[in-house]
């Protein structure tokens, strides 16, 4: 299969612009959060200042393996997003994402610090909570478009003319938005790593990471956030330009929805996170798939 020019453009754009867009989004997030709390808030560019500062700090590591794991985390996140924006197979993307997150968990475990270990355990719990819904999203997109390839989904192959994936996948879309809170590390599900002061056991998974290592984690999160918003986009394209614009707009809206939810809720216990996300996965995700299955049978 020849490599499409769009795939190459998507990949290059992601690799270069990804961290800038992600950092900017996180800056806007902090500004909006501050405004919602009646504060003035930091400059929009603050996340970039933070990362530059972390790069300048003295490197302190607990053991030599730690940096390696964090580097792997960053690399696998970039590979995940790269595969996604290159238009590769959706299942492959999801599995690389899981691998990337596992490296972060191993890095946290390797420090032997009790706080980092609690963070790592909670990270694993979160993965258990959101992973089924992510897989159902991929299956749903396959059932509507007949392909796991992101290139095909974006081109709107297998769709009735004028249709978009969302019209068959409303339940799955709701389910995905639900677990997006977890993936963005937002309240009420910011179990393993909260961005708010005094809401965390020291600093969750990142407790033992400092300086350059922490900066790499931050950059990985920027890449990850852009890729996650790309996932929201996948519910909209049908090969036309205006649906692509709408999809990008909705992805941005989804981001602000998460910021809003973050500020409106306190953190929940992990039991609630696990139960509620599985309940949502079953009631919205699985029910949507079953319905789709029967409708496809009738058509």
């Amino acid at each position, binding site marked *: 299969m020849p490599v499409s020019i769009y795939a190459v453009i998507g990949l290059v754009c992601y690799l270069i612009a990804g961290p800038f867009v992600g950092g900017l989004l996180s800056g806007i997030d902090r500004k909006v959060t501050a405004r919602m709390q009646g*504060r003035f808030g930091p400059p929009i560019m603050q996340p970039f200042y933070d990362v530059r500062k972390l790069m300048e700090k003295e490197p*302190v590591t607990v053991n030599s393996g730690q940096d390696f794991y964090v580097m792997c985390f960053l690399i696998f996140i970039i590979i995940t997003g790269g595969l996604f924006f290159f238009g590769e197979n959706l299942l492959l993307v999801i599995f690389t994402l899981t691998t990337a997150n596992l490296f972060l968990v191993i890095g946290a475990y390797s420090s032997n610090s009790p706080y980092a270990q609690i963070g790592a355990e909670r990270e694993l719990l979160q993965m258990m909570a959101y992973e089924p819904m992510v897989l159902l999203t991929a299956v749903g997109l396959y059932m509507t478009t007949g392909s796991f390839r992101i290139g095909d989904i974006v081109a709107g192959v297998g769709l009735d003319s004028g249709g978009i994936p969302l019209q068959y996948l409303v339940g799955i879309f709701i389910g995905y938005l639900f677990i997006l809170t977890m993936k963005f590390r937002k309240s009420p599900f910011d179990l393993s790593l909260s961005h708010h002061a005094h809401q965390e056991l020291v600093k969750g998974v990142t407790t033992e990471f400092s300086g350059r290592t922490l900066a790499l984690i931050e950059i990985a999160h920027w890449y990850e956030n852009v890729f996650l918003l790309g996932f929201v986009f996948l519910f909209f394209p049908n090969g036309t330009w205006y649906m692509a614009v709408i999809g990008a707009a909705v992805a941005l809206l989804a981001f602000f929805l998460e910021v809003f939810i973050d500020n409106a809720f306190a953190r929940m216990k992990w039991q609630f996170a696990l139960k509620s996300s599985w309940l949502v996965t079953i009631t919205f995700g699985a029910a949507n798939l079953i319905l789709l299955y029967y409708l496809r049978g009738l058509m």
Partner: protein
Amino acid sequence: MSYITKSPWIIHYDGSSCNGCDIEVLACLTPMYDVERFGIINTGNPKHADIFLITGSINEQNVSVVKQIYEQMPEPKAVAAIGICATSGGVFKDCYNIMGGVDTVIPVDVYVPGCAARPEAIIDGVVRALGALDEKKKAMEKRPHETTTAAEAVANLDRMGLPDGAPPEPLEELVLPGDDIEVKYFGTQPDDESADDSKNSGSGKEEA
């Protein structure tokens, strides 16, 4: 100006404070004062922190905690003593368990007196600590922070103890922890022999 002044992260520790100063430190984070405007974040983690705010004096039980937090913070780092208790021991100075101000245990860069220190004064103290951070950052750039040889390691060991055993005559400029201190004063101060012990012999050799 280095980036450290644009994103100072803070860790706050309550020594034996009466909680008056603690409340004022936390008040700095509220919408009224909003220190996040300057990129200041209150982290709970010494490994992420740049500025160490201590309220209250040091007592026999928390001295190890204060030392440990200080040691866990990566360079460059600054310490600000908030309130008169942290500055000198304050009204608790003569208590049986009080060792005194924060500078009895770790080097302090900024003193913010007041009982309780006002949020405006605390913010001012943090801004002054930024100046200290900037200077330390510059000093770090001058010297490679990795100690490779034994002599360098010994030199750095001495540097850590400098605030207490500072040389009788200052070198060219003010001696701050983290500054680029060379071992030469051990050689140039022959009357310092009494304070010499085994660990200084390594640096003496380097001089020769």
